[in-house]
């Protein structure tokens, strides 16, 4: 059974300037254990697609199944963890209680919460920072904490919406490496929204290229760079070939018309 199965998805917003087709006839299947990136310019519907999968948005047409059930059922049984563009940590909670927030909602016992938070914080390299408040940490550390929070209840599916978009490139490289290691270790399924070609190629097993007006899929690029990917892989011909194909896919969608 595929982890995500979308068939002919469309989503149209009604605005004062007429209808906006955020998604138009989008079909996509994500198998268990895959790392799939959605890439495209702003307005191509990549974030909308992720939000539909997470039941944060209802499609106006088509069907989605997540682990064989509707997105709403998947959400209610807490099938996925979601990481936003911004850390969205609650400033009145220490880092550790931010990580335990989903566990509190789900009614996990206090001792169990503590243990899991500690484990996840160590996994993202924040072992010694549990007692800090979010605003005492750098932007990169805050985003790592928010990833730890998404992992806290150990969902098999991780939905990430441009999680590193607001960070500078050095921090971003570092977090990309860590995310890759984490994915290799935990075998989770990841759907990752980005607008950076190198980031998508570096991380993914498959890259979904999207274009705007209406939001649709223009190309799906397999990305078989193997599980071991040092940062230097970005200079290899294989890497550059895949990046080139993604770039062409973006261009073919007239995505950078001004």
């Amino acid at each position, binding site marked *: 059974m595929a982890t995500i199965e979308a068939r002919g998805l469309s989503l149209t917003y009604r605005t004062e300037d007429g209808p906006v087709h955020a998604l138009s006839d989008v079909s996509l299947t994500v198998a268990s254990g895959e790392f799939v990136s959605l890439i495209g310019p702003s307005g191509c519907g990549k974030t909308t697609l992720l*939000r539909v999968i997470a039941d944060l948005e209802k499609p106006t047409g088509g069907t989605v199944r997540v682990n064989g059930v509707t997105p709403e059922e998947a959400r209610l049984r807490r099938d996925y963890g*979601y990481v936003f563009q911004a850390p*969205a940590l*609650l*400033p*009145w909670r220490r880092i550790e209680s931010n990580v335990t927030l989903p566990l509190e909602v789900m009614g996990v016992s206090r001792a169990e919460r503590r243990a899991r938070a500690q484990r996840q914080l160590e996994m993202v390299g924040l072992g010694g920072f549990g007692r800090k*408040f979010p605003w005492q940490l750098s932007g990169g550390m805050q985003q790592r904490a928010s990833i730890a929070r998404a992992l806290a209840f150990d969902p098999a599916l991780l939905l990430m919406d441009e999680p590193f978009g607001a960070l500078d490139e050095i921090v971003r490289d570092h977090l990309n490496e860590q995310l890759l290691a984490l994915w290799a270790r935990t075998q989770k399924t990841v759907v990752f929204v980005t607008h950076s070609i190198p980031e998508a190629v570096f991380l993914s097993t498959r890259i979904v290229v999207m274009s705007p007006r209406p939001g649709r899929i223009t190309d799906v690029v397999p990305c078989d760079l193997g599980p071991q990917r040092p940062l230097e892989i970005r200079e290899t011909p294989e890497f550059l070939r895949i990046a080139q194909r993604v770039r062409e896919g973006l261009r073919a969608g007239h995505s950078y018309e001004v």
Partner: protein
Amino acid sequence: MTTALLAAIVAAGFAIAIHTAHAGGGPALWAGLVLLVGLSAWLVGRLAELGGGKSWRGRALALLAPLAFGAVALALWEALVVGFAVPMVLLPAPSAIAQRIAASSGLLLTDFVQTFIKAVLVGYALGGLFGFGVALLVDRLPFLRRGLLPVANLVSALPVIGIAPIAVMWFGFDWPSKAAVVVVMTFFPMLVNTLAGLAETGRLERDLMRSYAAGHVQTLWMLRLPAALPFIFTALKVNAPLALIGAIVAEFFGSPTQGMGFRITTEAAKLALDLVWAEIVVAAVAGTAFYGCVALVERAATFWHPSIRA
């Protein structure tokens, strides 16, 4: 060092001037006062350059300028009122007010208990609780929210204090009618601010709770109420002086023979202005202390908010 010396000179100067004034004054006093005012301006200017920053030392030093300003104003008031022999009806000297406070402390305490402990505190607590409770209810019904918010905003701008005679009619002359006025006056700021605070939660945070399939109560308790706290404290701070004003002015419309507002009106009519000023001092101290307590609790409860941690 020169600043300390200057401060000593100004203090000694004012001490001599006030002493001279009590002894009968004279032209030398006026010349001395003009000189002292000049020196004080210089002193305050120098003190204003001190302190600043977040350290305790910096904060303490930053207090020096306003304290010196206040002390100079008080000393000047004393010297001028005594030196010019200003009639008590117009403006009593600070020393006369201080003597009256010492002499009538029992009376002042009775009035304070009647007005502050009973009317203000009870009304403030009830008004805040009602406002908060109604805000929680209204928050669940967007239609009611859209309809009630403009009405509540309008009422906030109205002279609510005018309901005092009606409150007297309904609840009698004693403190419950004053507390009722305070309830109405503090209700609307709390309602409006709590609603604004509950709307303050960011979209990301709400989506986050939704992705956890959190219920309404969980989202309220874990996310929206903590996020609304700064707004709720704004209302509590606005309401503190409002409650005191409401209780005092409500007593202008009739009260038993005690209470700060009652004393102020009756003694003013008898031209016993020193006692009126003594009540004002009590009211000012009570108001500042009340506000200060709320502000302290606010600092502890919303330590995470950018405006507090900066």
